[in-house]
C-alpha cells in the first residue's frame, strides 16, 4: 500500500459485517468473570438454604413465614416458589443492579470504553449489546434460582400432584411447566429495571456508584409501592407487578398481570433505553 493509495486495504474473505461477534464476546466476558459466577452461586444458594432449613425444622408452622413456605414439606416444587418470594424483591435486584450498573461505567472505569469506541464499536451498537448482556444476566440469575430450587426440592421432598392456588391439582410435569412460566415472568419483570441500570451507567465513570444507584431505585420503587397514599402512582412503578407471578399458579391461568407487566416493562425499556442513548450518543468519553 503506497502512502498515496486512497483505497482501503481489501478485507480478507467475504463476510457480512455483523454485531454477532461483539455480542458473543460480551456474553463470554460476562460469564467468564468470577464476579458473575459468585452472584449466580449466591442466588442458587437461597433455595438450597430454604430447603435445608425447612427439612431440619419441619414442625407444624402453618401460616407463618414467606408465602408457600408451609407447603414445601408436602411438595418439593414449592421450594422454587418460596425462593422467588424472597429473591424477587431483594436478591435479584441486588445482582441485576450490579450487572446493569456496570455495563458502561465499568468499561469507562477500565478505560476500555475508549478503545471499543475507537475500534469502532458504534455507540448505539455498543449500548444495545450491553443491554442484551444485562438482559442475559437477568435470565441467568433467574435460572440459577429455578434450577437450584427444582433440584434441591426433588432431592429433599416428595414430588407429586401440586394443588394450585385455585384449589385444582395438576400433575408434577405441568407444575414444573408452571414454574418455568414463573421464571419467564420474573425475567420479564427485571428487564425494565435493567434498562434503568443501563441509563444510570451512562451517567458516571464509577461502576460502584452506578450499581448502588441502580439498586436504590429498586428499593425506592418498592417503598413507594408500599405507601397506600400513593396508590395513583403504583401502576407506573416498575416493581408494581413483580410479585404478580402467583397469578400463573391459578387455574385457569390469570394472564392479566403478565400482560400488564409486559407492557409496563416495555415502556420502561423504551424510555430508559432512549434516555441512555440520548446521554451516551453525545457523551464526551474522557476516561
Amino acid at each position, binding site marked *: 500500500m503506497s502512502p498515496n493509495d486512497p483505497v482501503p*486495504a481489501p478485507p480478507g474473505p467475504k463476510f457480512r459485517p455483523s454485531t454477532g461477534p461483539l455480542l458473543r464476546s460480551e456474553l463470554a466476558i460476562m460469564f467468564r468473570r468470577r464476579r458473575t459466577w459468585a452472584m449466580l452461586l449466591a442466588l442458587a444458594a437461597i433455595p438450597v438454604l430454604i430447603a435445608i432449613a425447612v427439612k431440619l425444622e419441619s414442625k407444624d408452622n402453618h401460616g407463618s413465614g414467606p408465602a408457600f413456605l408451609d407447603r414445601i414439606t408436602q411438595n418439593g416444587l414449592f421450594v422454587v416458589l418460596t425462593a422467588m418470594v424472597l429473591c424477587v424483591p431483594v436478591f435479584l435486584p441486588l445482582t441485576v443492579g450490579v450487572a446493569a450498573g456496570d455495563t458502561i461505567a465499568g468499561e469507562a472505569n477500565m478505560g476500555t470504553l475508549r478503545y471499543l469506541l475507537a475500534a469502532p464499536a458504534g455507540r448505539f451498537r455498543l449500548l444495545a449489546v450491553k443491554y442484551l448482556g444485562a438482559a442475559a444476566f437477568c435470565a441467568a440469575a433467574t435460572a440459577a434460582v429455578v434450577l437450584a430450587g427444582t433440584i434441591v426440592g426433588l432431592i429433599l421432598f416428595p414430588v407429586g400432584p401440586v394443588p394450585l392456588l385455585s384449589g385444582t391439582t395438576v400433575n408434577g410435569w405441568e407444575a414444573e411447566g408452571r414454574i418455568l412460566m414463573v421464571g419467564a415472568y420474573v425475567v420479564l419483570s427485571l428487564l425494565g429495571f435493567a434498562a434503568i441500570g443501563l441509563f444510570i451507567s451512562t451517567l458516571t465513570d464509577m461502576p460502584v456508584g452506578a450499581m448502588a444507584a441502580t439498586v436504590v431505585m429498586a428499593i425506592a420503587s418498592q417503598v413507594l409501592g408500599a405507601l397506600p397514599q400513593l396508590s395513583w402512582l403504583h401502576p407506573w412503578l416498575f416493581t408494581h407487578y413483580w410479585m404478580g407471578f402467583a397469578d400463573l399458579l391459578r387455574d385457569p391461568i390469570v394472564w392479566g398481570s403478565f400482560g400488564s407487566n409486559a407492557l409496563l416493562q416495555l415502556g420502561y425499556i423504551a424510555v430508559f433505553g432512549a434516555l441512555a442513548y440520548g446521554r451516551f450518543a453525545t457523551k464526551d468519553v474522557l476516561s
Partner: protein
Amino acid sequence: MSIPGPAAPSGPAIETRGLTKTFGAQTAVGNLDLSVPAGSVFGFLGPNGSGKTTTIRMLLGLITASSGEASVLGREMPARLDSVLPRVGTLVEGPAFYPFLSGRANLARLDSADRHASPSTRKSRVQVALERVGLEAAARKKVKAYSLGMKQRLGLANALLQPRELLILDEPTNGLDPQGTREVRSLVQSLAAGGTTIFVSSHLLAEVEQICTHAAIMRNGSLVAQGTLGELRAGGRARATVLTPDAGAALAVLSHLGLVPDTGHPVPGPSGAQHLNAWLPEVAAPEPEEIVAALVSARVRVRGFSVDAESLENRFVELTGSGFNVAQ
C-alpha cells in the same frame, strides 16, 4: 469493500480547521489548524496538559469539538467515523485492558468490536500482532499480571490488528525500558516505510527528533509551530559563543555587530576567561569569521569561538515557554 462517495483524496492524513474544545470556562484546545501530510511520521509535541490528548480524542470522535472541523483520511470526523476508524490504529492516553482476561483474549475482544473485522482471520491477526510487539510468550497471561511496558506493547498490538493507513499513537513509549523504546522506534520506522502515516504525540523531544519527519508544537492548547523538522530548526536563531578574558571589550564588539548578548548566565572558563553568549541577528547576520576578525582587531584575546544553530530542544523550550512544567 467499496465505500460510497468520492474516493478519499490523497491530501493530508489529518487536517483540522479552527478545532476548539472548551471544558466550562477552560479552553483545552483553541483554534487548532493542524495539517499532517500523508506518509509522514508526525511528532505532536507539547508539555503535559497542553491539549495533545484532547486533540487526539476529538480526532477519534471520543469527544465532540466545541467548534471547528476535523478530517481524518480525507473524511469529515466524527460524521464519517464508521468508515474512517477501521483504517486507523490507535493508542489513546495509555493502554487499557480487561485485567481478568489474557493478552490474547483482550485483543480478540477489542477486534470483535469492529464489525468490519473478519472473524475468520481474527485468530491469525491477533497472533501476528502479538509477535510483532514481542508478546507471544506472555499472550496467555492475564493482563493484571502485566508490567506497564507489557501493557504498552499490548496496546500497540491492538493498534496493529489490521493493516492501517494511519496510526495515532499517544505517548507510545511511556513506561517502556530503553530496549522497548528502541523496539517501538524501529517498529514505527518499518510501518512508516510501508506507507502508513504515523501521528505520534510525545512530551519527549528526543524521541520525536529521532523518528519524525514532521512535527507540531503545542502550548496551552494552541499550536505554536508546525512543519518539517528542518523548517522547525530553521525557525530558531544561531548563537555565538566566545571564550575570552576580555569580557567587556568583547561584548562591545558583539553589540556593535548587531548581536544580542545573552548575559543571563555567564559561564566562567579556565584561567580568568569567560564564555560569552550572544544571539546572531535574524537578518543580515555577520559570518562567523567576520565576528572573529572584528574581535581580534579590537584586541580581544579570543581563546575559543563557535556559532551553533539552536538545538531543537532549546527551540521547544522557547516555544512552549514553560518547558516541561505542567501547563495551567
